[in-house]
Structure formats: structure tokens, C-alpha cells
């Protein structure tokens, strides 16, 4: 069969799970083989990382050079196999504070050189131990650059990673059962089941968060600004949220196709009707667009990285942004919509990055001002939201 040789990799150190990790020298060992099969039949051979097993998802790549743990735990990546273009992964281990949600959300990971040992004195475990603990199937020793070029040309597609079965026929059959991301509703899978509070309950500002897959650092940004957030499940009704008497509404980021969550669009329409301050990020931005009669579409291969240039058309200044989206909002619809002003554009492809409702106190951005990972250039948007609330 196509795998005729073993993959040798030196795995001679592994860290002991403890506050003070110890390095133990182990002799040269070899990794178990693993395979990555794409929907179009392309096969990449590599080494097994993380949990031994099989996993599927839509394959996408992130060009960030830092922040792997934040990326893996970002709920927007739910159901996706993530390719890291940064050539070394795992170098600085993991630390609980770097989690962006309750656990790892990606369904699988692909990288080139994986470090089982790490260097960061305050880190608590190696990435290998962390991925195993979170039961994520991964593959390393892959020509990730070639893979990225492949995705760039062929577009986003589903993929399967397996380190327990390398028979392509079986894998292909398994892969064919994976649904396309288009039309997929995933928010309810990553959203909280029960509403909960973040921050000081007595805080002067109350923000109702519609959790479509919210990142921890968004909530931290509210707390840092003396606001208390109440995080509501994705399918919470407008009435439930309004009953808490918030000063503003926040529509979060999240995974999946925005067009597949009409319930959230409905909620946003109701919020807009009250003319209360509203801020949306990523999926939240797409929902605001849909609620304003602007369509969304699935992008060829999305924007995922920490270096995307965005121009703020209001101030004339530009910002380097953290991005993660596979869907976008229709430019033509926006240009024809007299209620919407474009506030931010992407300098690479001129796509819409931010909008504002001229007739409402609502605005949103496609990218991630909360960063984590990524540059903090756009952090001012949280201040603008606070200013909008304070009037």
C-alpha cells in the first residue's frame, strides 16, 4: 500500500504533568504513522500527534505565528481541521489562562514540525499532553505550505485525519459522510446551555451577550471596562435577554454558516427595533448584516491569521487584525442599502470588514478586536461600544 515506510521522529523528551515539569531524556523513538486525506482525493502522509484515532472536518489554515492554544480553543473553529502554517508548533507548551473557551474546539490539527518539549517557565503542560487530554487527533510532518497552496487553489473542503487506520478506501467512505460547512448550524453546539454572568454584578453597565460561540477574551474586555456581561444561550429569545434590562447587546463570534441560524437573525431584528446599542463580532457581524437585509456567502478559503490589514474609513487609520472567518457579507447588497455605512475595509481584497447602521446604534466588525491571539490594534472598538452605551 502507499505507506511503505515508518516515520521516524525523535520523541525523546516528554514532560511529566506537574507544576514543575521535568525533562527526561529518552532514546530515539519513532512516531506512529498517520494520514490526511482531502475530499478531492489528495493524500498527505505524516506522523500521529495528539490522540490516536480518526477525525473529520472542514480543512482551513491559519497563518498566525503565535497563539496556537488560543486558536485551538476558539469556538469559531468548531468542526474544522486546522492547518498551522507556522513551521514549529508546541514550542512554548500550554497554560490554562490561554484557553479561549472551556476546551479545544477544533476537530483536528495539521502541522509541520511539532515540539514535544517546550520552553516557558510558567507553562503547565506540553502541547502533546494537552491535545491528548482534550482527545484531539492531529498529524505532523506534513508539507503544510503545499497543503495551503492546495487549499488556496481548490478552496475549502472536508478532510479526514487518521492515525488508527490508513486504508484510504475506508477513510474515503467515512469522509463522504461529513456534511458540507455550507448551511451548517453549529452555534447551538458550542453555545452555553444556561445563561451566566461574567464580571461584577454591581457594575454600572450591563451587556447582554448572545453566545453563538463567544471567546473568553471578549468577555474579559467587557469586565476590564467595568461592565458586567450576561451570556445567553444561542437560542435565547429577545424577551429573555431584555428581561435582564441590559444597556447594550453583544452578538458574538461563532462557527458555521450565518444563513443557517435564522433564530439569531430574528433576535437581532428585535434588538434593532428597540434601538438599543448593539455590537457584533465575526458571526455577530454577519448576523447584523442578515438582519439588515444584506446577504452572506461562503468564501473560497476564508481569512484566518493575525496579520490582516484593515482600514478604518472613519478615522483614516489602519489596523492589523486577527481574523477567522469562512463566510463574508455581500458587498453589493451593502452598497445598495441606504441604512448601512461601511466603516472598515480589508486592504488586501477590499472586502467588507466593518459596518454601521445609520439609523440605529448598531455596528459590527468581521474581524476580532479582542485578538487573543493576535494584535491589539482594534481594541478601541470595545471603547466605542462603551461610549455608544453611555451615550
Amino acid at each position, binding site marked *: 500500500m*502507499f505507506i511503505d*515506510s515508518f*516515520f*521516524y*521522529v*525523535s520523541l*525523546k*523528551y516528554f514532560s511529566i504533568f506537574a507544576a514543575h515539569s521535568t*525533562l527526561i*531524556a529518552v*532514546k*530515539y523513538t519513532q512516531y506512529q504513522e498517520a494520514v490526511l486525506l482531502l475530499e*478531492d*482525493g*489528495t*493524500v*498527505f*502522509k505524516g506522523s500521529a500527534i495528539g490522540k490516536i484515532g480518526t477525525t473529520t472536518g472542514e480543512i482551513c*489554515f491559519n*497563518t*498566525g*505565528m*503565535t*497563539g496556537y492554544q*488560543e486558536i485551538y480553543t476558539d469556538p469559531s473553529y468548531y468542526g474544522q481541521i486546522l492547518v498551522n*502554517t507556522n*513551521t*514549529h508548533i508546541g514550542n*512554548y507548551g500550554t*497554560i490554562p489562562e*490561554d484557553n479561549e473557551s472551556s476546551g479545544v474546539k477544533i476537530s483536528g490539527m495539521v502541522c*509541520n*514540525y511539532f515540539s514535544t*518539549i517546550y*520552553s*516557558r*517557565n*510558567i507553562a503547565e503542560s506540553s502541547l502533546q499532553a494537552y491535545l491528548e487530554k482534550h482527545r484531539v487527533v492531529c498529524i505532523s*510532518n506534513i*508539507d*503544510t*505550505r*503545499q497543503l*495551503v497552496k*492546495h487549499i*488556496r487553489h481548490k478552496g475549502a473542503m472536508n478532510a479526514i485525519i487518521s492515525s488508527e487506520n490508513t486504508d484510504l478506501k475506508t477513510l474515503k467512505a467515512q469522509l463522504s459522510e461529513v456534511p458540507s460547512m455550507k448551511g451548517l448550524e453549529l452555534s447551538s453546539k458550542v453555545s452555553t446551555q444556561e445563561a451566566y454572568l461574567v464580571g461584577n454584578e454591581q457594575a454600572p453597565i450591563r451587556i447582554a451577550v448572545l453566545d453563538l460561540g463567544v471567546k473568553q477574551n471578549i468577555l474579559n474586555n467587557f469586565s476590564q471596562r467595568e461592565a458586567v456581561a450576561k451570556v445567553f444561550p444561542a437560542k435565547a429569545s429577545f424577551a429573555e435577554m431584555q428581561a435582564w434590562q441590559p444597556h447594550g447587546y453583544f452578538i458574538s463570534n461563532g462557527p458555521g454558516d450565518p444563513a443557517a441560524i435564522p433564530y439569531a437573525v430574528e433576535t437581532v431584528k428585535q434588538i434593532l427595533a428597540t434601538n438599543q446599542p448593539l455590537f457584533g463580532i465575526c458571526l455577530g457581524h454577519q448576523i447584523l448584516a442578515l438582519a439588515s437585509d444584506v446577504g452572506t456567502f461562503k468564501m473560497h478559503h476564508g481569512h484566518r*491569521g*493575525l*496579520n490582516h*490589514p484593515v482600514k478604518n474609513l472613519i478615522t*483614516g*487609520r*489602519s489596523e*492589523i487584525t486577527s481574523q477567522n472567518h469562512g463566510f463574508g457579507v455581500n458587498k453589493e447588497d451593502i452598497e445598495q442599502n441606504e441604512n448601512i455605512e461601511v466603516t472598515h475595509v480589508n*486592504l*488586501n481584497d477590499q472586502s467588507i470588514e466593518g459596518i454601521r447602521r445609520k439609523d440605529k446604534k448598531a455596528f459590527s466588525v468581521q474581524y476580532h478586536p479582542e*485578538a*487573543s*491571539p493576535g*494584535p491589539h490594534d482594534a481594541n478601541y472598538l470595545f471603547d466605542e461600544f462603551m461610549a455608544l452605551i453611555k451615550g
Partner: protein
Amino acid sequence: MPKHSAIQSVLIIGSGPIVIGQACEFDYSGSQAARSLREEGIEVILINSNPATIMTDPVTADHVYLMPLEKTSIIHILEQHNIDAVLPTMGGQTALNLAMKCHKAGIWEKYGVEMIGVDVDAIETTEDREQFRLKMLEINANVCQGETATSFLRGKEIAQEIGFPLVIRPSYTLGGTGGGFVHTPEEFNEALTRGLKASPIHEVLIEKSILGWKEYELELLRDNVGNVIIICSIENFDPMGIHTGDSITVAPAMTLSDKVYQHMRNLAIKVMNGIGQFAGGCNIQFSVNPENDEIIVIEVNPRVSRSSALASKATGYPIAKIAAKLAIGYNLDELPNQITKTTSAYFEPALDYVIVKIPRWNFDKFKGSNNQLGLQMKSVGEVMGIGRNFQEALQKACQSLEIKRNGLGADGRELTNQQEVLDSLANPSGNRLFHIYDAFKMGIPFKTIQKLTKIDKWFLHQIDDLVILEKEIQKYPLAELPKALLMEAKQKGYADRQIAHLLRCLESEVYKRRQELGIARVYKMVDTCAAEFEAQTPYYYSTFEEAPLTEKGEVLLNNESIVSEKKKIIVLGSGPNRIGQGIEFDYSCVHGILAAKECGYETIMINCNPETVSTDFDIADKLYFEPVFWEHIYDIIQHEQPEGVIVQLGGQTALKLAEKLNRYGIPILGTAYEALDLAEDRGKFSNLLKKLRIPYPKFGVIEDAEQAVELAKNLDFPLLVRPSYVLGGQSMKIVINEQELEQHVVDILNQIPDNQILLDHFLEGAVEAEADAICDGEDVYIIGVMEHIEPAGIHSGDSNAMLPPFSLSPMLVETIELYTKKIALALKTEGLINIQFAIKNDQVYVIEANPRASRTVPFICKAYQEPYVNYAVKIMLKENKLKDFTFAPRKKGYAIKLPVFSFDKFPNVNKELGPEMKSTGEAIYFVENLQDELFQKLYDERNWYLSR
């Protein structure tokens, strides 16, 4: 804001002669800036006293002034031209200092010249240690505890407050001159005095030592509206305590989490905005406490620096080019990404590979120097390796160094004395990296190595991992070595030679085995964006990657360097700068590329020196940033199938590959290998001279001291003693008696065992001269004859020399020209040749011939304003004959070549000059006639060289 329309002519100030701490990286930045401004239709006027640069070439600027970097020269230029603005940030500290001097003297104001790309306050803040410290505290950025002193007494008081160990950093100095660590009160007085003396304003900063913290650099660009981007993060392999110019550095940063990196990024932006509002490049150094991730700001350079050159080559982002555009008013978000051409220049490059920079030292040239590394920079050049992982990049950088190593280890040159290794780990010098490897191989515990070196454990692990891999490889004979294991070794950067050493077989056998198993190099692109966008720029590096397969099991192409149908040539670069082989060879390489392009060839450059213009992605049609190391070159040749290879332009580095190219049947363009070999082989060459009836000093070849003494009886003292096949007169010495002769021969054989040694009768008191010529095999054109001002005995690179000769009679000059022609024709030269002469008692002797572009070629090109390299390359390519060119040299007065030394970096070194070259750079100085004061002075002092 778009381009500033009021700026129509810009003066760029260069960095002058090359010295340690300020090298050819500023030729790169100056050239790029000039090209960038001319693209905008701006007239560029350039001043630099360094003739070996591309920036001072007519291809770069509209008007070039090869004049001393002094106020009077600036005034002279401002009188000649209507200049709107001056860009002083491209020429290092020298240019900034000159611009500041002119600013203080009111010169810019008087002539209505605007200083662009810089902020006077920013310079003052960053260069004055005390102001800088206060500024950082004001903007809430952590700095190291410390204070400045302008007097000895105050210095002692501060030291008492801070305690030892501490650091002394003099204000306004270059490359850390005069600075250092002080561990005990006993060393303090002397160190403080030296520091105060080194500072032009008699001021030092005394700081708490943070030896062993992690060190980082960020390269920033800022535009007029305050948009700031980080082009590159660089992590030092060597922790705090070693000057960054002497540190092994890695990009991108390897061991920073996103939280720490973003904190650093925020700090960088705050610092840059805090020190001033200028549009251009900036470099900020940070230190991170490994215990708790605390970050402090170490230093800020509000200009293009050595690190920006490295960052440009590491990321593909042309920092100097963009910085020049920002200086004339563009904003970052108005400019396109120069590599993809479709996306924005306002972005932060994403790397999907690793680069490792290793400095190149020349301690052997400075006998008696302290070769320990510290706060003062001592390296003379650097190499960069690009790989898909750290280990590969590290091995490639080691292969690029040309220090007779085949990479990091596995070449039989390991140190095996445990105590020596341990000492070296604790007291870093130029080869500590190699000794870390040796330590792992010897079995010294990881913790001990880390304790002694304080190097981050991730890096140390990478080296340890190599040693473990080698042990695994050694379990097999070549024929049974598993494919995956061989692949892993190649992926980790091992050269076939290293693997052959491990398996005790031949390099060619490893190569053959690789071919059989289908393990071949693939080329990947440096594209600034980790393949997210289509890139247009042919900038490549090699690696090994398993190719993906199609559904049907067909192998998919994963090689990004697509070979064109065009006829093509390869130019071999000159590798790292070192004494004896510097920027002048890059000048020739760049001209070679441009000339071949004119002839319709696709041009391919191979080089590994990140400071050069030849490695700019828009010089050659294709750039392979690879070691000038046989295996890499051969694979590129196999891939590209060029018409031939040009070896004449890249100095000795390229020339010495001729033998192997010839053996493998690869065409060498220009002078044939046989002639190159003949000129190098002293015996064969003398026979040729004898046949041509050209006199040469009596000489002989010996292999031990006994033979030497025997031979000396025939040759007569004084004798010039040197090993054969060396560069820049390495280990060359003049001896006057048997005892000295014996000693030196034994010394050489200890340093370079099994080498032949040449003894020449030394023509005491002779006048030295050299001629450069172009030959097409039929005709010879002498491009210039230079006469040394000092008598024989000083290396030609170290002597002051005049173009044309000033004291030789017309008959002697004619003899020199005649001999040059005879030799050039006899060697069937096609291209350039340089011949060295000694003249004694009206007799002209030939000392040596170098059938290649020499150190003096760029000098003559500049002085006579003629493109000789261009002509020579067209002849090599057989596009033209000599008679096709019209020669019209501008012969007016004389041009003096003035060598420049970097002795200030080595306080204990004997400054005596001799047959071994020691200068790091040179300047050109034009004089009207022999009554010139500078010439008179040099002439009067010509015999003083022994005590220089």
C-alpha cells in the same frame, strides 16, 4: 497622505568605509532607498566615501559624490544642486551623526533642505542613555535599573548603588564600542575610564546586569499618520550579554507565546510613538525574564539598521525601500506589498520557515585579541540559513560560514577535551555553538549545558536532538539506512558529506543513495504571507518535503521553483564578509547579474549573505538564498540546467568551486578552469613566467621546517612565508633569519596541517603595484594600474594606493602593462584579471596573478567612471569582444585608496601591519595633484607602517 510633491530631489548619505559594527548592510539600504525614490521620479544625489558599494554606482543614483563624509562635502554638494530633502536614515550611525552635525551647524536650514525619515528629537532621545531612560519611564515602559554618569566619581557612586555585576554602556558609540560587563569592583575603574573615553560626549550608562535573560528584537515601520507594523520578530539564540551583532539570531521568535509577544508588540508601538513622530524604520531590542515573562526595553534605533537588513531578507519585506517611500510622504496603506504585488504593504509578514543568522568572526586576523564575546561587536560579517525548521536553517547557516566545517558537527572537527568544552560554554567566543554540539555528543548533562550557557532549553534541545539522530543513523550501513531516517537527516539540514562522515562512506555514495530513494531537494518561496496569496517574486530556499499524492497515487509537484525555457546563467556569490573578501565582490556580482540580463539571459544568483545587494529579490531574475556550498550549488545547477556558471565575480569563495564544477562537467563561463588552476599553482605559474621571460622573486615550496631552512640558503633572507591557497594573506609573514623561519613554519603547520608552504624571496624596499585588466582571449585592455604608497611588505588590501601610479617611470608602467597583457593572453583569460607587481632597481617582478574580479576593480570603475565589470561579463558570455567597447576613462588627477581599520574593537591587538590583511574597509579620495596635503602626509609617513 500621498507623495509629498514638494520633494523633487533627495540627498542620501551613505555609511562610509566598512568597519566592524557598520558593514555592507547599509549598501543594501542605501541602494534600495535610492531605487525606491527614483521609481517615484525623484532625483537622487548620493554621498559616500566607500567606492566598493553598489550605492555609489551610476546605476543607483543620478549624481554620486565619492567624498569624505564631512560637513564641507555636504556644503559642496548643496552648492551644486538644488536639494529639497536629505534622507539620513539609510547610512547607519555615520550618516545620522553627519546629518546631526549639519543640523546643529544650521546647514540644512541655510540651504532650505528638509530632513526626512527622521526626527531630531527621536535621535537625541535614543542616543542619550539618560534621556532614553527617562523617556521610557515617562511612557511607562520598563527599563533596566541604571543611571548615567558624566564623571568618574559619579560613575563610582552609581556602581555602589546598583551593585555588581553591572553593565557600562557609553553614549553615542557604534557597535557597543567601549562597553562591557563588570563583574567585580576591581575591574570597574578601568572599565569606567574606557567607557567614558569611548563616548564622544564623555557619558556612560551604568546598568544592572541582566545577563542570561532572553533577548529579542522587533523591526518596525511607521508612516506619517501613525500606522505602525511589525515586520519581523527576531529571537537571539544567545541570551543577554552578547552584542546582538555577535549573537546567533533566529526569526521568527521561537519561544514566545501570543500573550508575551503581543505585550512586546504593544510596547514597541508605544515606544516608537513615544520617542517621536517620524515616518520610517525603527528597531527595538527587548529582554524577557524567563522566570516570569517580564519584558524590559533595552535599546531603540530610529533608523534602518543591520537587523533591518536581516529582517528584510528573512521576511522578503523590503524595509529600506518602503521606509524611503514613507519618508517622502506615502502611507503604508497606500503602497502595495512588493512581493505579492496584489495585497497591501500595510501588513505583518507571516513566515512558514525559519531563518538563522550566524556572525562570521576573523579573530585570526587580530593576533592577541580577546576573542570572548560581550557587549562590543567583534564579528566582520554574517550568514543566514533558511530552512523549513530551525535545525535545517542552523545547519545551512553553519555550511555557509566557510570556516572549513560541513555544518554543525558530524565532520570530524569536534572538540573532545571536556574541560575546553566546558570553558567555552561558560565563556562564549565565536565557536560556542559548535562546542554546545560537542558537549551533547560527549554526554555532558543537559542541565549543565543550560546552566553554563543560559541558552533557552528549546534551542538546546534542538541541538541535542541532532546528536541523538546521528547516533541512530550510525546504527546502519548506508545500504540499510531506512529511507525515512535518511529523509529526516536531510530535513534536519545534514549535508551528504556529514552523513557520509557518520556512515564512513563517500559523499557521492550518499548522494547516489538519495537519488535511488528519490530524496531530492525541493525549492520553496519566501513570499511574506505563508502561501496565503499568490506571490510574484522568485526568491527561493531549498528544503526536503514529502510530496502529497493524488487519489491514483501520482506524486504531486511540491517544488515551487519552476524552470523556464530561457537560456540562463548562474552567478556564485561571495558568501559572508570577512577581512580580505568583502563588499567589493558583491559589487562585481551585482554588475555581473545586470550585464547578463542585458544580454538576454535569465540570471540566477546564489548567495547566503543577508547584508548584500546581490541577495535583494529584485536584482537577479531568480534568487536562491542558499549556502555557497557544493551540495547546494550542485543541486541548483541540476535543477536549472544553466548555460554555465560565473565564478570570477564572487571572490575566492566562488573561484575555489571551479575545480569541482570542472570535474562535474559544468561549464565555467569566462576563463577556463585550467587557467584558474595554473594561476593558483605557484610552480606551474612560475614555469609560465619563465617561458614568457617575466621576472619573479625566487621562491620554493616546502613541507616542513627542515626543508625550509635548506631552501632559505638558496633564496636569501628576508623571506615571505605563507601557506598555499589562502585568502587575504592569512598566516603570511616576513622572516629575516633561520630562527624566525623555523618558528613560523611550525606555527603554520600546527594551524593548517598537511599544507604546502611557500617561501618567496622578499624584495625589501620594493615599490608595489597592481594592474587590473579585461581580456577576451585575443585582446587585453588595462583598466588601471595602481601604485602602493607604502613600500613592499604590507598586504595590498592594507596599503594606501594611487590610481594611476605617481612615482613609477613611464617605462616601468609600460613594462607592467606589457607583462599584464602577456600573462592575460597566456592564461587565455576571458574576463577579468588582476596582477600584483614589485618593482626594485628598475626591474619589474610579478608576484601573483588572480584571474578574477579583484578588490580594486570597483575602485577603478568608480574613479574612471566606467562599467568594467559589465564589459568583462559580456566578454565571458561571448556576447562581445573587447573591440566592441569604446573606453573613455575620466582621467583627472589621482584617486587614493585609503584602507580603514577596526582596531578600536580590539584594544589589546598589535596595530602593526604586514603581509596579512587587517583592514575591514576602504575609502576613495580624489586629489588634483601630488601637492595635495593628504597625499603628502601619506607619502611622508609611508615608512611608518610598522608602528601604525
